[in-house]
């Protein structure tokens, strides 16, 4: 298809002065983002006198607070992503294939959650599931209980539930796009041939959804690893993640080098997940 190639190929010129146009935005990003990033790495590995500080790095990496934060971060991220995938898939299936009057509006409403601050949900959960929240007050009144019976909010589960709410739209969006491409005729033909809904979902719809699930899932992993607001607002003592630890060390303890060491680990983890997302998205054409 040489003609298709010719159309896709940019106008090739030998001396293209236009190439230099990239310099201003690239320089801006380099100064404001990559230079600070490099300084984080420098400060993580070298102490103030410019000498490599291996002992400090090892001490931080073996410390209880770091290991706990790492485990928390990964656990929360994986659990929340799994939750987002399940909830997103169920909602998308219903919105796309069992639509009801107003389902388009509901889909858009869920979509606007992407634009809302993440901590909003945590704050709302305090009113809903907090020890003096609606659920506990209701249960205490109804069953005359002396103590609030529901107590998951100030644990990893509270964080996970909040993140599922906040990040499900990131799964829903690509899924709905993928479902809109599924041939309705196929589903009708399968129904006419006597296939039950579950069979149709498994054999026709899910295969079409897998690229969107993988790309959306890896994006969710990335965003949940980086999430800060939700964890900060829940403010539970036992639930410290890497971003929260960096904030604590830098701002509350002014331990910049420790913060930088943890930041390097956090950034490496995030960039790894980013690579996974780009690979998945690029490979699957989402």
């Amino acid at each position: 298809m040489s003609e298709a190639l010719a159309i896709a190929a940019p106008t090739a010129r030998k001396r293209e002065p236009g190439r230099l146009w990239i310099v201003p935005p690239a320089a801006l990003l380099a100064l404001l983002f990559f230079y600070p990033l490099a300084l984080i790495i420098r400060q993580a590995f070298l102490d103030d006198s410019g000498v490599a500080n291996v002992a400090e790095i090892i001490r931080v990496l073996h410390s209880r607070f770091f290991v706990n934060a790492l485990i928390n971060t990964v656990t929360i991220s994986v659990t929340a992503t799994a939750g987002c995938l399940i909830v997103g898939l169920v909602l998308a299936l219903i919105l796309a294939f069992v639509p009801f009057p107003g389902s388009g509006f509901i889909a858009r409403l869920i979509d606007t959650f992407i634009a809302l601050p993440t901590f909003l949900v945590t704050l709302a959960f305090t009113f809903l599931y907090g020890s003096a929240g609606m659920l506990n007050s209701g249960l205490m009144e109804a069953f005359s209980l002396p103590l609030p019976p529901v107590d998951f909010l100030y644990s990893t589960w509270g964080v996970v539930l909040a993140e599922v709410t906040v990040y499900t739209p990131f799964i829903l969006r690509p899924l709905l796009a993928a479902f809109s491409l599924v041939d309705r005729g196929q589903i009708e033909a399968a129904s006419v041939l006597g296939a039950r809904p579950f069979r149709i979902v498994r054999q026709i719809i899910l295969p079409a959804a897998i690229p969107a699930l993988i790309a959306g899932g890896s994006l969710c992993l990335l965003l949940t690893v980086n999430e800060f607001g939700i964890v900060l607002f829940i403010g539970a003592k036992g639930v410290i993640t890497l971003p929260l630890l960096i904030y604590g060390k830098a701002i509350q303890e002014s331990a910049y080098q420790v913060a930088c060491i943890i930041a390097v680990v956090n950034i490496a983890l995030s960039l790894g997940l980013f690579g996974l997302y780009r690979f998945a998205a690029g490979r699957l054409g989402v």
Partner: protein
Amino acid sequence: MSAVAFTGPSVMDIDAAKIRGAGSNVHFDKVSVAYGAHVVLHPLTLDIAPGEILAMIGPSGSGKTTALRAVAGFVRPASGRIRIGATDVTDLPPYERGLGMVVQNYALFPHMRVEDNVAFGLRAQGANKALISERVKDALATVGMATFARRYPRELSGGQQQRVAIARALAVRPRVLLLDEPLSALDAQIRRNMVEEIARLHRSLPGLTILYVTHDQTEALTLADKIAIMRDGRVCSHGPTTELYRRPPNRFTAEFLGRANLLPVTVAEAAGPKGFATARHGDAVLTGAGRDEKAGDKSLLCIRPQHLSLTADSEHTNRIVGTLSEVHWQGELTHLVLDVDGTPVRVSATKLPVALPEPGAKVPLFFAPADTSLLPEDASV
């Protein structure tokens, strides 16, 4: 960009009479295009005369669009020069070449009204308001779209959009009009009308040089003064339309342009002073327009489906016999397929014998030497 380098026609200094009188010629001088090691256009040398419509046709991937885009300046040749008129445009950016271009999907600017679309080129070149409004009116009138000036492109049908696209290209008074598959996005009925429209347009602007790229042989045959047939990045034949149709120089041309029947023959007697040679196909001795074949050469006898007849006639002195395999009645025409010693031969007949033979029957076919030509049996071209 210095002022001296600007060689494209400015809208100010070329008046209508001049461009209508004589357009520019386009000259490809050993132009080749490659992407890395992949050659999409082998060195091409070709001339389009002022006021000529040259149709480049060929299957997709044959390099025809690449050749047009090289003229437009969107593809840089790996070697060779392109001249428009007296100007070597090879190193000029597209906006200094003084061209008009129409593409398959019209590419009308959706945020501009029809009149602003048509005025675009003149405004971009800094023409004055009076000239712009006159030219826009003129161009829209030429394509019969004057009453749609205030519409937006999305309010027009496909055919109307393509007219506007043509008006937009004409308004700049281009030295050369490039048409890149201009009708492919239209449905069959509108396409036929538009072919006639373009033919009419060219009659009213006889000086306009047009390079018309298409994969549709009907468009090429209807419109073009000359045709260049492209295949695998090379011109496989180039010549005046009727000549190329009547005397195709090679097998690919014969088959691509009008699906000719090609009967393998052995030359019995080289062409005489009248240009007719005789050749044998099995027992049949056939006469046809020859070139430089010598007695004993393997050759192909080219006969168009519409020139074969089931009934004898004083002119139809050639006769072959085939086995009827298929009959397709299509109203005004009946298509027959016969097997002549293993070669499928198609016949388009308007007149049929009263008793139509059944498939499987032996049927004689008659045709005139004047409608027949010999061409070299060379599988490579």
